Every structure is written in structure tokens, then in C-alpha cells.
């Protein structure tokens, strides 16, 4: 084992840093709505045009074909430069749909969609969860009826982030009537402008309307849009989820380090009720030190994971360990900062979002984080099942 970066790595870091210094937008990202989506598209197009989109995507689909280490370097430089947060309206396309198409799509699907995802032309959204199929995804009921060369979809999906701005959706539907659990499902590309789709925003306790419930009333989708085979959608979906649980949150993992730095710096400035500097209080300092250690470990785990994938080819169930670590550390951090901030923390205006009041937003977000994409409880089940091979009761 070693930490040595190659000359190519160092050169890439220097190039990324220089470019980001010049190109990171000065104005903040609008917190919500169409303006935010436009901002994301423009930033993505700029990345694409300047050769920084799809760092580790194959060159044939418009990517740079670089290594996972260089992907890490890119995220670190983005966090350092204060570049737009990469979990935005482009996320599902870049981190879900793209990798899924690469793994399971037809050549035509790859050639059409992948470059348009990279260029910011197409935004995607997810369509897996349903009101009665959240943690238990395989209980989904939205039906796809095959008629000729079309799939006719009826039902409802929920927790669909940014559905209103998405061009396409990765949609998982039950195509074999009466099929049970993970059998008889199909993963299909749904054009969000199709007739019969209606979108109902869900306001969250953060005050935003990122997520939506999407209703499908006789929505017609060409069978050519099926990714993988009809009836084999679970297999395709697993490759989507494996990516998310594998390395899909690397950027987040690394961005956490920057937040911790800010928190430590805050603790050097603010005074507690007792008059002492927060950093000089043994309780606060001890908790901050532990959070810092956890953040360093998250980076080490990321590098370890990349090294394992490099030698074995598959991320494995350790993604669940990572998600627990990242979400619990982020939660501990934002809750500690809430204690430091005093009344400033409570002055939350519900319109500013992450950009205006990052700490209060992060505090509220900490529950979204430990629930979305598989709750912490589900992650522990996955670890118990797949990593520890404990007997199942389910």
C-alpha cells in the first residue's frame, strides 16, 4: 500500500485546480426551481466543453477515461474551490442513469443518451420508490402493460427528486401482471414530456420542493426504451443501486471534510454561554476531534474502496458501511454546529435554502440523508446479510 500519486495524477490536480480557480461561478446557485436547474445545466455544459465532464466515463461515450483516483482528485479540488455542489439536478443522470446504461443499455441507447447526460442537455430523475414501496422496493405496483411495441404505464412513483425539470426518468414498473416481489419488473427510459404524466411536488420540512410524487395515466413508452430485458428490471435496478451504494457518493464523502474544517474554524471564533471559546471547551473539542477523525476515515475508506474495486472489479456491500459512516458523521456535525450557532441557527427563512443558511439546512437535511437512498436501518440489514452473513428472519 502507498499514498503516492503518479505524475499524471499530480498534473491532473494542477490542471483541475487552475481551471476551477478561473471558472467556478461567482454568483451562488439559486436554491430552488427552474433557475436552479438552468444553473446546473450551464455548469455541466461548461464542464463538458472544457473537458472536465465524466472524469472516469469511457472516452467513447464522451468521458475522459481517467482513473478513479483522478475522479477523487477532481472532487477534492471542487470542494476546495467551492465549485457548485455536484448533488444537483444532474445527479441522477450522471450517477444513476449513465452508469446503468453503460452496464445494461443497448449500443443505440448509450450513443444517444450518454453524451447528452454529460453535456447537461438531458436531466434525469429517478422513478423507483412508491408510497407503499419505500424501503421494500420490490413491493412496487406501478404497472406496465405491453401493447404492440409500447409499454402503457399506470400508477404512481414518489420521492422523485427534481421531477419537474427532468427530461427523462429511470422508471421501474411491474410488466408481468400478478408477479411477485422482484420478478416481472422492467427498467425503462420514460420521456417526462409524455402525455399522461402529472407531477405533484412534496414540500419537505426544509421548506423546499425538491421531491415529487409522479402519477402515470396511460403513459405510452416505446419498448425500445427498455434497458436490459423486459421482466428483468430488478437486475438492471441492482446495477443502478450498486453504483449509488458503491462510489456514487464519493463527492459527498470528500466534501464533508471541508464542512468539518469550517466547523472547527467556527469553534475557534464563537463563545459559549460561559464566555469561553467553544474550541477550549473539553466537551465541544472532544466531539469535534472525533468528527474530524471520522471524516479522515471516510476519505481513507473511499481510497480503500477504490483500491479494492481496482483489484477485484466490484464495490461489494461496503457501500452500506460508507453510507452509515457518511450520514451519521454529517448528522453529528450539523447537530454540534447547531449548538454552537445560538440564535443565528434558528433564524431560518425557509426560502434561502442551502446557500443562505447552510448549517440549519444541513441540520434539517441530516434526516433526509439518513432516510433517502435506503434508511440507516436498511443499510444495517444489508451489512448483516451480505457482509456478516448473519441468518435472516425475513
Amino acid at each position, binding site marked *: 500500500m502507498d499514498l503516492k500519486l503518479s505524475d499524471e495524477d499530480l498534473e491532473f490536480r494542477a490542471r483541475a485546480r487552475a481551471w476551477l480557480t478561473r471558472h467556478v461561478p461567482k454568483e451562488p446557485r439559486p436554491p430552488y426551481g427552474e433557475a436552479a436547474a438552468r444553473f446546473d445545466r450551464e455548469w455541466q455544459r461548461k464542464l463538458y466543453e472544457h473537458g472536465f465532464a465524466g472524469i472516469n466515463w469511457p472516452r467513447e461515450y464522451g468521458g475522459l477515461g481517467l482513473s478513479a483516483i483522478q475522479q477523487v482528485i477532481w472532487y477534492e479540488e471542487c470542494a476546495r474551490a467551492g465549485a457548485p455542489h455536484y448533488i444537483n439536478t444532474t445527479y441522477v443522470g450522471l450517477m444513476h442513469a449513465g452508469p446503468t446504461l453503460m452496464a445494461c443499455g443497448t449500443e443505440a441507447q448509450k450513443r444517444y443518451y450518454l453524451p447528452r447526460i454529460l453535456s447537461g442537455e438531458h436531466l434525469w430523475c429517478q422513478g423507483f420508490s412508491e408510497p407503499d414501496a419505500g424501503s421494500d422496493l420490490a413491493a412496487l405496483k406501478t404497472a406496465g402493460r405491453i401493447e404492440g411495441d409500447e409499454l402503457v404505464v399506470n400508477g404512481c412513483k414518489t420521492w422523485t427528486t427534481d421531477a419537474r425539470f427532468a427530461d427523462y426518468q429511470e422508471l421501474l414498473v411491474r410488466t408481468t401482471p400478478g408477479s411477485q416481489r422482484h420478478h416481472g419488473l422492467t427498467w425503462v427510459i420514460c420521456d417526462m414530456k409524455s402525455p399522461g404524466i402529472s407531477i405533484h411536488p412534496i414540500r419537505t420540512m426544509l421548506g423546499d420542493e425538491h421531491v415529487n410524487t409522479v402519477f402515470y395515466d396511460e403513459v405510452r413508452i416505446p419498448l425500445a426504451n427498455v434497458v436490459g430485458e423486459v421482466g428483468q428490471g430488478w437486475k438492471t435496478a441492482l446495477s443502478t443501486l450498486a453504483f449509488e451504494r458503491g462510489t456514487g457518493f464519493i463527492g459527498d464523502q470528500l466534501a464533508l471534510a471541508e464542512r468539518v474544517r469550517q466547523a472547527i474554524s467556527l469553534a475557534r471564533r464563537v463563545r459559549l454561554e460561559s464566555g469561553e471559546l467553544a474550541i477550549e471547551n473539553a466537551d465541544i473539542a472532544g466531539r469535534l476531534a472525533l468528527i474530524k477523525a471520522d471524516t479522515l476515515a471516510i476519505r481513507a475508506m473511499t481510497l480503500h474502496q477504490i483500491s479494492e474495486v481496482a483489484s477485484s472489479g466490484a464495490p461489494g456491500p461496503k457501500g452500506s458501511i460508507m453510507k452509515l459512516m457518511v450520514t451519521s458523521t454529517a448528522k453529528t456535525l450539523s447537530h454540534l454546529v447547531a449548538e454552537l450557532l445560538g*440564535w443565528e441557527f434558528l433564524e431560518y427563512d425557509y426560502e434561502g435554502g442551502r446557500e443562505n443558511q447552510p448549517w440549519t439546512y444541513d441540520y434539517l437535511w441530516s434526516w433526509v440523508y439518513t432516510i433517502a437512498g435506503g434508511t440507516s436501518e436498511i443499510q444495517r440489514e444489508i451489512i448483516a446479510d451480505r457482509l456478516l452473513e448473519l441468518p435472516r428472519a425475513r
Partner: protein
Amino acid sequence: MYLDLDEGERAVSEGVAAFLAGEFPLQRLLHSSDSEALEAFAAQGWLGLAVPEELGGAGLSCVEEALFFMAHGREAGPFDLFPQMLALEVARHSPTLVAELLSAVHRVALWVATEGETARLVASAPPTVALRIEVQRVALWELKGKELSERTCLDRSVSFYLVPRAELRLLAEERCDLYLRAELALASMEVGIAQRALEMIVAYARQRHTFGRPIGAYQAVRHPCADMAVRVEAARCQLYYAACALREGHRDAATQVSAARVLARRAARDNTDLNIQLHGGLGVTEEYPAHLLLKRANLLARLPGGRSWEREALLQESA
């Protein structure tokens, strides 16, 4: 020695619970504000719960007040009741002021911090009077000017009002154990919140199914719920004890009240957190009331601000 509700106490507790559930249920906060609430409580005579009968009140004690605020906490009741009812204790020596407070002619905000030349108040509507709670004294200040700058609060049922410090004029003050009354009332609200969070998740866990079973059949839900119940029970029993110790003038009343507050704050914080987490996605939506409890608990946790006092009261030699 009897550490449970007697008949009269049960009547107070159930009365306020019924009134709140009817007129000010938790769900109200999803759609409306509490700006008219004070008048409704004034009309029912609740504001004078602990005011002596000769001053127009019901003449009850801090024990009944604790029960009142526990029921209030369960619905994240109108915040303004807390400063209003405490102000009545400060105003004891002025029957006129008492009458104006009892009838909600005067509206009391809580003065929570002083930032440079600005006083930060919390209330659900523009106040006429501000209550400042400090360990050594609790005091009532009149707002001379009308120069209020309003800011939104995480708990949307209230606003922050920023006023120039110079525009506040001392009306009345009290140096006895009123600080303990404030801590006790806050602890009571927090116990109510913690209790409501437990009830909310237990009801949901009975009916929500995943993987073919109600989620309440999974230990990942059952065991955190059991821990929530432990926290509520501990905080509630300690609250009862502290309320009695305060009323009966025990030497260790400050220690007992501190213990009640520390445990109530922990119960409110942890239970409102778990309530959201165990609900899954529904828990973070605005239309579901779980977040209302969390946000109210966040506001209360910062009041009145004497954490080091609490610690000292718990660790003192004689405690």
C-alpha cells in the same frame, strides 16, 4: 407522599388537554398561525391558573402549571402562553398589570438575547411587553417604541422581533425562585413533546407495513421506541418530583428542577429525532406533523439559557 396525579390534578390535566386538542391541535401549525391564541386562553381563564384567587386567578400551584404545560407541549401549544403566564408572577404586586395580562391586553414576548444594542424577542405576534428570564432575576419590560423588525424562525409558529435595547423600560421584576418556575415550565413542555413524539411513532408503527409486516414488529423500530418510552417516563417522574419539591419549598428544589430540565430536554431532543427517523420519508415531509415537534424542541432547548447553572445545581456538594 404520593407521586402521581390526584383527582383535582387529573381534572386540570385532562381539561387543558381537551381544550388544546379541540382548539389548538398540533396539526393547526401546518396551516395557521398562533397570533390570536392568547385571547382564546384568556377567555377560558387558563392564563390565571397559578394567579391567586384575590387577583382574579384560579389560585393553583406550580404543580398544576407543570401539568398544564405538559399538555401544552403535546400539541406544541401557542408559545406565547409561556412568557404570558410567567409575566403574571412578576406582576404580582400590581393588580392593574395582572388584569392587563390576564385579559391579554398586554401581550408578552420572551426576550431571549441581547445582541449589541438590539434585543431579540420571540412571540407569535407583535408584543407590548417583554419578559427577560435570568438566574438572578426575572423582569418585565415595556416596549416604548413601535420599531419592531420581524424575522422568521425555524419554528414557524413564532417570529423573532428585534427592537433597540434603549426602547425597553423596566416595568416589574422578581428575584425569588421564578427562574425555577421558568425551568419547570420548559421541562414540562419538553416532556409533553417527547411524549407526543412517542405516541406518533407508535401509532404509525402499528399500521405502516414493510416487507409484509407492520414496522412495529421489527426490533429496529421496537427497541428505539422502548428507549423513547424510558426517556419519557424518567423525565415525567422527575418533573413531578421537582414540581412538588418547588411547591413545598424543599432545600434541594433547584437541584431537582435542574434534573427535570436536563432529562426533559434530552427526551425532547432524542424522541423528536427518532420519531422522524423511524417514520422514513413521510417523517421529513412538511404535511406530516413530525417536524413541528422537532422544531419546537429546538426553540425550547435554547431557553432560558442557563446550562451552566443547571450543571452547577446538579453537581453542588450538598445535592
